[in-house]
């Protein structure tokens, strides 16, 4: 029977609540105690309601027993408090089992697959009685959270559709390059790496290939991976991270500028060109 449709004795509820609050009990606990007292009081004054409750809530066997005994047994059982009735008839063995302290009887683990005990129930019983005192208010920072569906997912869908539409339009009108068949004997001038390596290719102009091609890329990768272990500043406020942000921005811009120079300002013979004067020697 749901909590809402259990009738309460309002007078008992109010007085118990007041008494509990006066004792300094936590409001939630006080309300729980008042409610249980009010329900018990109501059942005591309305025997027929309590009998119905017993029949509905107890196991079928218990219900049959009540019915078999006829109408005479019902008021007697109902007159007693609900807990006592349950204890006497023992129909709610589940609840009783749940509150007894578990005792370890099984032998220590052997590592073998366990065999089922004979006569054991197939199902786990996940029912327990919790006294109102046992209910604790958990204080956890809930944070300001919103449901993923619909708020986040709709945002993701919109972003996805915009990207897809833009990319499809772009791909419809602008063809990806395809030059003539590969010819190992004919080096194009200039020959450039894909754009994301042009920063490194640009560095080749200034450093020995081992430095530009091996040392610096290794340093970038290892350096990037090491960022969280080097920067131990716990704050994520931009104001507290001036050094980190400055260093990262400078390196990022440095890489970006090198890539742009390698892409647009280098022409035949990998010599300097002005893209607006001599043209762009860059292909994606």
């Amino acid at each position: 029977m749901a909590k809402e449709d259990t009738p309460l004795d309002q007078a008992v509820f109010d007085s118990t609540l007041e008494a509990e609050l006066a004792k300094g009990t936590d409001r939630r606990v006080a309300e729980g105690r008042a409610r249980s007292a009010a329900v018990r009081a109501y059942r005591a004054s309305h025997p027929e309601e309590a009998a119905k409750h017993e029949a509905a809530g107890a196991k079928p066997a218990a219900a049959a027993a009540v019915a078999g005994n006829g109408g005479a047994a019902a008021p007697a059982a109902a007159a007693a408090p609900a807990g006592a009735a349950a204890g006497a008839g023992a129909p709610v063995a589940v609840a009783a089992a749940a509150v007894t302290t578990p005792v370890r009887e099984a032998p220590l683990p052997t590592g073998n697959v366990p065999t089922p005990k004979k006569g054991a129930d197939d199902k786990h019983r996940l029912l327990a009685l919790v006294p109102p005192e046992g209910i604790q208010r958990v204080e956890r920072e809930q944070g300001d959270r919103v449901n993923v569906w619909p708020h986040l997912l709709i945002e993701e869908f919109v972003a996805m559709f915009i990207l897809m539409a833009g990319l499809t339009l772009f791909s419809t009108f602008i063809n990806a390059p395809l030059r003539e068949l590969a010819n190992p004997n004919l080096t194009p001038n200039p020959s450039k790496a894909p754009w994301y390596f042009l920063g490194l290719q640009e560095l080749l102009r200034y450093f020995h290939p081992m430095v530009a091609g091996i040392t610096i890329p290794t340093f970038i990768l290892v350096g990037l991976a090491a960022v969280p272990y080097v920067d131990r500043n716990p704050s994520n406020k931009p104001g507290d991270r001036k050094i980190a942000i400055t260093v990262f921005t400078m390196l990022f811009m440095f890489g970006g500028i090198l890539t742009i120079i390698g892409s647009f300002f280098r022409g035949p013979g990998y010599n300097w060109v002005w893209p607006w004067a001599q043209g762009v020697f860059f292909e994606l």
Partner: protein
Amino acid sequence: MKLKPPSPSDLGDRIRETEVWKSIFRPGSIFRKGYKDTSRDRALATMNNVLYHLHPVKVKRHGLKLTYTFCLGGLSFFLFILLTITGIFLMFFYRPTADIGGAQAFADMQSIRTSVFFGDLVRNLHRWGAHLMVFSVTLHMARVFYTGAYKPPREFNWVVGVILLFLTLGLSFTGYLLPWDQLAIWAVTVGTSLAGYSPFIAKQANFLLLGGVVVGPETLLRWYTLHVIALPFVTVIFLAVHFWRIRKDGGISGPL
């Protein structure tokens, strides 16, 4: 008795009450009859969907703000999926062989552009999408840096992200060779010539990368295998770890 055809909404209701429909859409699905726009059903909509359940049921409100993430990580993942789909399409029409007699790879590229239905569009999507993915992954890294999202407990996820950036570059670079045109082999020749300068293992590194001393048919087959199966396989594993760690590390970082 006159039989009246059911109205569309009535028919929809009836279909959604069938056992088949109910077996497909789990309780809480928005496609199931009786979906209510309550907190409970909203939570179930996320939990009971194989795709959406990558997400938690709730996220921090500031994470919705476009200027916090710019959707860059999500779009990078979307581009990865798009590239997988278009890539599978292209695989049907492409053979990675470039023997001296005739370069089948290049011939296949031309036929994709000219005679395959939608071949040109799909190839364009694949190529532009790939460039865009390198770009979006790089920007995603910058975003994560600027929001300080690599700080504890997310240090390791940043490392996984750096590996994913490296894998993205690897995927893009191995794909660059496959058209087998002048652009492809010379870009790859320039890019891999740097490996020849690695200390101690210069020759071995070059040979491992190229399958020979210069970019040739063996390189094509090697990079094709890397491009279509080896690197995507590794990438998916790291993606899984990346997404899993986002959840385990307490969702999106911040707020600032």
